[in-house]
């Protein structure tokens, strides 16, 4: 019940295209869902996050879509750029858990020029 399943493992998208990464969770007590971006040799950095009281959150070219009934959430990257090439992690936690995040396995995204 503590798992967060992320797909796909890897993704190749043409420059200007839409990148979509999906995550599913089992624990209905989770109420905080961030996405982190990691470049090689660096630690992850927060990209965008959502709470389950909204179904969508947009920041620039990045959008989280959240489906509470299906227990799924996804990251959409519009107009994907080569600089977006990185590994993306979804995660989930309970607000009162001292930010103990349960992480997905990661998606390696490559944007082809």
């Amino acid at each position, binding site marked *: 019940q503590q798992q967060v399943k992320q797909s796909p493992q890897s993704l190749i998208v043409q420059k200007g295209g839409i990148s979509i990464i999906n995550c599913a969770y089992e624990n209905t007590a989770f109420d905080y869902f961030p996405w982190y971006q990691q470049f090689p040799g*660096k630690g992850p950095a*927060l990209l965008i996050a959502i709470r389950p009281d909204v179904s969508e959150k947009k920041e620039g070219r990045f959008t989280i879509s959240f489906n509470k009934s299906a227990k799924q959430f996804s990251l959409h990257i519009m107009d994907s750029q080569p600089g977006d090439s990185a590994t993306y992690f979804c995660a989930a936690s309970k607000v009162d858990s001292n930010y103990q995040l349960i992480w997905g396995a990661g998606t390696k995204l490559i944007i082809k020029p």
Partner: protein
Amino acid sequence: NAGVTQTPKFRILKIGQSMTLQCTQDMNHNYMYWYRQDPGMGLKLIYYSVGAGITDKGEVPNGYNVSRSTTEDFPLRLELAAPSQTSVYFCASRSGGWNLSNEKLFFGSGTQLSVL
């Protein structure tokens, strides 16, 4: 600003050796975390601390120990290194609170550890 600093960046240990991974942050954050990252496995929480003198186990604490004597430092100790502890280790910190617009983990650049 330095943020979260981890040392060393790379280390090779022999089975049974011990070592301490250092982590220090200069943001006066109360919360600090140690994660390990294995290929294709995401990040797993080893230990975390909510303030000086207070630590607690995460998902995978076996084989590790931590201490938090100051707000700035959160070292991770491996007592008897095993091949299963070959991984990339990340230290992270956050200030605390649940204002979604502000809350996030600040990560160090990681320590790549090989146990042979």
